[in-house]
Structure formats: structure tokens, C-alpha cells
């Protein structure tokens, strides 16, 4: 009697094991590879945030044709766009995200792929004025303007959005192709080289033009806004996948919309979480994605961005890097439109809007409401949070006040007086005089303004003293 039991239990466990191993006859597993760039901060709501908050799983279709399909989502992280294109060509990734130039190369490369094409299906983040890309120099170097870099060694990752910015800037200023000694270096190599002063300047995409100054060894001397050519990071998908599983692509966009909402609901928490997930400092994340930040997260495909892409194609053609390619035919907004409709959102209204969310609230130092968000400022106090102030003078005043009270301050933000881009206050040049404190990215802008108000140009520490003294020098 007792002897029979082991046999029975073995038989039972074998049967149950067999049941476990044999999947239901109809179930199918589909792998969805998504190529993301964790360190490229303006793509995080389309990548890292969705991954970490499991938003895609939430929206994936589960009934009808999908009842028996199990999706396995593979997030693959890269530091630039071309490897994403490579993996998409090899069908290891079905969805990918990257900056404007790599996107165009992606679309063009897929033209010769017999299996599938790629389509631009949505936008991760954009800056209509072209901010985000920038040129930095070593902080001890004597260069304050592009013109100072004549004949100098400038590195930029070729084929990146930053490369496009450099070419546009040279074209705008009428510089010949040999004005700089332009070489190609990846962000990793370029950053190290700049730190070691082996190159005179490094041009790069998000977030390096802010990250390197924040890390303390670089100074930004050129911002993409000066080219006034929109820049963006977008999302491309393989058509074979998107046509077979359109509902999955729609679900991805619902997740993206939810991720953008999550960011705007609590930008400080978002910045802290994104630092935890991607390793980019929260203060840098916030300058891009916070209120009044240099990037607008908006998934709609704006005509201005496609026009910019068309201009980018010309640049690549002039370099002999590309033949015929029409960005207009490459755009497919059907998935994002469907996601908007299913979430009861108005796509066309969002498409027409180019507004970012802005700094608002009450200035607790100057005791007045914030009326002009692009003249305002913010101070990130370690334990009190990110506090808004109505003007640069009030921001610096509050900064001094917090310092005097012995508070630990992470960073302070102000806005450039002419271009409206967000700056780290301690990196800015201040035109001070006549009771006015006006921050600028560029020394020459600050000098011009100081001459106008017959004041003078101060660095951050002196500007703080001047602000406490009522804006007198």
C-alpha cells in the first residue's frame, strides 16, 4: 500500500510537469523590441518612463485577435540612433527612437530593405527653436563665441542632430567648411577629450550640452536656438510589424501620452525618478523636461518638424550621404491619431499647439504672482522642493536668502533674456544695473544689454550680491 505512493506521486508530478510545459495549443508569443536611448533625456518619456512604470503592459490589447497572443517586450538601450537603426534593419527591434538626423538616415536606409520600410509614427520631444543641441568648450578656455573657434579642433558625433546644428550654424554665418577643424567623436569620447582639453570644443545633442557644464568642466557657448531650426526626437516603426499589429502601436502611444502626463503632474518627482533610472542628474533632466524646459514633450507630428526634416535631408544630400528621400511620404500619423481618439483627446488641437507647460504659482520671496514665466526663475532647495520666483532678481535674492539660512541648494534656474531658454543660474552671464538683473547664456548678449542699461556684466556670485543689494553694481 505504502509502496504504491511514490510511484503514484511521480506519475502525478510528471503529468503536472507535462501540463506546465505544454502551452495551450493556440497561445502565441510575439516579441516586441523597442530601441530606446536612456541617456538622451528628451526620449525618456517614450522609453525609460514607459518601461519603468509598465505603462505599455497596461494598454496592450488583450481581446479579439489578441486573446491568444502574449507580447514579450524587450527594451534595448543605446547611446545613439545608428545602432537602433541597425537593429531595426535586422528585425531585432520593431520600434525605435532617435534624433532628427539619425531618423532620416533610418527612413532612407529602410528604402532598400525588401522586407519592410520604416515610418515616422510619432514624436518624443521637440524644440521648435532648436534648443537641446549645443556647443561646449572647456570652462578654462578663452572661447566665448563660435567666431573664437576659427581654425580650432571641434568634435561632434557625425550623423547626429548636433552635427546638423553645427552645419546649419556654419551656413548661417557664412563660414567655409574649413572654418573649424571638424572631427567626429561619439559623446563618450568627445566628453573625455574635452575634459582633457584635447579638443577645443565639442558639439553634442541632449543632454550633453547641459550635462557637461553641470558636471563642472565645460561651458556652453552656442545653443541650437541660434540656428532657429527645429530639432526633435521621434519614433519610427517597421511597417511589417505595425501593419500586422496596429493596435499594439496604438497602445504604445497611449502609454506615451500617459508617460507625458505623469511627467507634467509632478516634474520634480519625475526628474528624481529619471535620474534613478537613467543616471542623468535630476537637475539636468529638469532643465529639459521641467516647466518652461528646453524640450516640449508632445507626440503629435507637427508640420514644422517635417519641414525641418526636409531641410536636414538637403544638408545630408549636399554632404553626399544620401540620395532622394521625401520625409512627407515617410510620415504615418494614423497610429497616434487613433490613440488620441481612443483616449478622447483632440489630436488636431494638440497638433496646432506649440505651447510647453510653464512655471506658475506665487513668488514666496518677492511676494507676488508669476506673470511672465520666461522671465521667472526657480531654486531647487534640497529639502523644500523646487520653488518658483517671478524674476531673475527675485530668484537670486531668494538664493542668497536660502544660503544665509544654511539651506542646501541643488541648483537655480533662470531664463535667457533674449532667447527664452532655461539656464543654470551659476553658468549664466548677468547684465546688472539700474535695479535690473538680466541673465544671458552668451557673454556678448550680456555685454550688449549691459551697455543698453549702462550696467555691467557679472558672473553668478557677484550677480547674487548685486541682487541682494537691489540690482546696483
Amino acid at each position, binding site marked *: 500500500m505504502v509502496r504504491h505512493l511514490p510511484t503514484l506521486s511521480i506519475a502525478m508530478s510528471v503529468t503536472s510537469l507535462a501540463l506546465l510545459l505544454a502551452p495551450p495549443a493556440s497561445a502565441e508569443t510575439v516579441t516586441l523590441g523597442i530601441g530606446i536611448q536612456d541617456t538622451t533625456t528628451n526620449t525618456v518619456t517614450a522609453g525609460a518612463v514607459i518601461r519603468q512604470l509598465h505603462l505599455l503592459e497596461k494598454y496592450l490589447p488583450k481581446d479579439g485577435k489578441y486573446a491568444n497572443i502574449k507580447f514579450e517586450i524587450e527594451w534595448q538601450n543605446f547611446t545613439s540612433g545608428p545602432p537602433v*537603426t541597425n537593429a531595426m534593419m535586422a528585425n531585432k527591434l520593431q520600434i525605435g527612437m532617435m534624433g532628427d538626423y539619425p531618423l532620416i538616415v533610418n527612413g532612407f536606409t529602410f528604402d532598400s530593405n525588401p522586407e519592410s520600410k520604416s515610418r515616422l509614427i510619432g514624436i518624443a520631444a521637440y524644440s521648435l527653436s532648436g534648443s537641446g543641441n549645443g556647443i561646449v568648450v572647456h570652462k578654462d578656455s578663452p572661447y566665448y563665441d563660435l567666431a573664437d573657434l576659427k581654425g580650432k579642433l571641434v568634435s561632434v558625433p557625425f550623423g547626429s542632430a548636433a552635427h546638423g546644428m553645427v552645419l546649419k550654424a556654419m551656413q548661417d554665418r557664412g563660414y567655409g567648411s574649413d572654418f573649424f577643424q571638424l572631427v*567626429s567623436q561619439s559623446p563618450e569620447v568627445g566628453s573625455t577629450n574635452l575634459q582633457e582639453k584635447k579638443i577645443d570644443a565639442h558639439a553634442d545633442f541632449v543632454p550633453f550640452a547641459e550635462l557637461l557644464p553641470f558636471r563642472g568642466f565645460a561651458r556652453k557657448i552656442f545653443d541650437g536656438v541660434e540656428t532657429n531650426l527645429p530639432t526633435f526626437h521621434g519614433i519610427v516603426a517597421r511597417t511589417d510589424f505595425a501593419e500586422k499589429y496596429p493596435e499594439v502601436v496604438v497602445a504604445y502611444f497611449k502609454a506615451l501620452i500617459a508617460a507625458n502626463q505623469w511627467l507634467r503632474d509632478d516634474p520634480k518627482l519625475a526628474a528624481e525618478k529619471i535620474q534613478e533610472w537613467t543616471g542623468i542628474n535630476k537637475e539636468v533632466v529638469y532643465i529639459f523636461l521641467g516647466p518652461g524646459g528646453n524640450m516640449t514633450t508632445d507626440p503629435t507630428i507637427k508640420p514644422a518638424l517635417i519641414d525641418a526634416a526636409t531641410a536636414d535631408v538637403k544638408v545630408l544630400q549636399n554632404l553626399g550621404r544620401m540620395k532622394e528621400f521625401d520625409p512627407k511620404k515617410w510620415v504615418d500619423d494614423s497610429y497616434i491619431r487613433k490613440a488620441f481618439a481612443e483616449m478622447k483627446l483632440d489630436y488636431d488641437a494638440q497638433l496646432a499647439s506649440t505651447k510647453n507647460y510653464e512655471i506658475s504659482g506665487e513668488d514666496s520671496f518677492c511676494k507676488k504672482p508669476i506673470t511672465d514665466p520666461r522671465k521667472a526663475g526657480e531654486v531647487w532647495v534640497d529639502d523644500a522642493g523646487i520653488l518658483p520666483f517671478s524674476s531673475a532678481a527675485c530668484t537670486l535674492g531668494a538664493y542668497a536668502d536660502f544660503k544665509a539660512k544654511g539651506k542646501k541648494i541643488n541648483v537655480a534656474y533662470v531664463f535667457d533674456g533674449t532667447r527664452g531658454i532655461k539656464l543654470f543660474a551659476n553658468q549664466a552671464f548677468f547684465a546688472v544695473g539700474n535695479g535690473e538683473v538680466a541673465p544671458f547664456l552668451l557673454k556678448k548678449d550680456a555685454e550688449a544689454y549691459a551697455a543698453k542699461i549702462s550696467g555691467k556684466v557679472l558672473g553668478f556670485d557677484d550677480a547674487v550680491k548685486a541682487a541682494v543689494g537691489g540690482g546696483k553694481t
Partner: protein
Amino acid sequence: MSASAIAETTSVPATTPPVAPPSFSTLALRWYRLNRDGLRAIAIGIVSLAAFLLVWHLLTTYRVVFFVRFTNVPSPLAVYASFTKAIHDPKFLMHIVLSCRRIFIGFSLAAIVGVPLGLIMGRFKLAHEIIFPVAEVLRPIPAIAWVPMAIMLWPTNEQSIVYITFLGSFFPILVNTLHGMSLVDPVLVRAAQCLGARERSIFREVYFPASLPHIFTGLTVGMGVAWVSLIAAEMISGQYGIGYFTWEAYSLVQYADIALGMIAIGVLGLGSSMLIRGAGRLVMPWRLK
């Protein structure tokens, strides 16, 4: 060779009358007999390369997929088109010249440092005990991992690049020299000592020639690895070099140029290895064949 055989060969010219110079066809035949094996190898080599190209062409033309996928791999003709474009571009020549120079300097330094160090470590136990652990820790580190450190270590980028190619060839040279030293027949050493040879002479006359074959194996392998580390090294360059050319093609997703860069590195690697083998034959005539 026996004494009678020597007598025979030396006496032959004296007894036979002078012969007419051999005709062209006899010469050609003789040359063919002498080089038959070499010619055979060349012919088979050409056939096998042609077969490789043909297979590559067919796989990519018909976009074959059998687990390995050739859907988007560039065809030989596409690569050839890139090649014809590249040779008309003076920049391409510059890429090759600069890469060769970097490899030459890096490799020469590695040989100059690696061979004597290997000899010393093989001869003196203390040197072996001090250097070996460090070398063994550094040896497995891939070239690409050295990139950031190399940038910081050296004042100019050119030096950083040479440093990485140096590291690539240094360890194979060192390890093979050491191996050669450990295989030197102790009987030979003792014999030399019995004959009153000093340390210097033993080194010069016994250890060095005895380990030369292994040193040359090390040099050949080292040269190969120097080319292997070229792409990683030239990521730093940002402007010139065949490794940089390949890297830039990757960042612009130009598959034909990537393949062209790969093939150029392969061919240059082959050429430089052949040079070393040739040098080896000159230095070690006793090993001819």
C-alpha cells in the same frame, strides 16, 4: 651528408665538359618544379577566394535566409562600387596611410619592449614573478575598454591610438617570447656553460636563437591583434584611419562602406603578417620550409 658525397659533388665540374646554357623551356620547367608547391597554393588560394566571393554574391543577391539572414547584407558589387568611389577619394588613401603608420609605430614599440622583457622574464625568475601577475591581469582587457583611459593617459590623441595598438600586439609578443624561453633545451645551456660561455654569450648564442621561432609566432599574432584593436583605437581619432572610416560608416548606417572598411583591414592585416613571415625567413634561414 657523407664525405664521399661531398667528394663526388666537388669532383663533378672538373670531369664533365662545359655544358651549353640550358634552354628557356628547361629553365621554366626547372623553375616550375622548384616552385610547384607555392604555385599550387596560390592557385588554390585564388579559387577559394573566388568561391567565397561567389557564395557571398549569391547569398546576398537572392537575399538568402536560413537562420542566418542575408537580407540586408551588402553584395560584393555594392562593396566594389564603394571601393571604386573610395579610391578616387584622396581621403581614403589618407585613412590607409595613417592607419598603417599607427600600426607600425605601435607594433614596433611592442616588439622593442615585449621581446626583451619576455627574454628577461624567461631567464630571471624574480622578474617573472614581479611582472607576470600584472601582465596577466592587463592582458584580457579588450581594446575598446581602454578607450577612455587611453584618452586621459596620453597628451595627444595620436599617442592614445598608438597606445591601444601597442597594447594589442604587446601581450601576444610577450607571452610567446616567454613560452619560447621556457622551451629552450637545458642541455644546450649546460653545454654552453661547460664550454665556458658567459651569461651574455649564452643569451646571445643559445636562448635568443632557440626562442626565435616562438618570438616570430608572437610577432605574427601580435600584428594580427594590433589590427583587431584598430577600430576601438581609431574611435578616438575622429578624422582619419581605416578603423575610423568603418566606425563613421556605422554611425551613418552605410553598410557597403562598413564592409569595405572590414575588407581593407583584413587585407592590410594579411599584408603585414606576410611581411613578418618574410622577415622571419630572413632571420632564421635554418627554418626555411
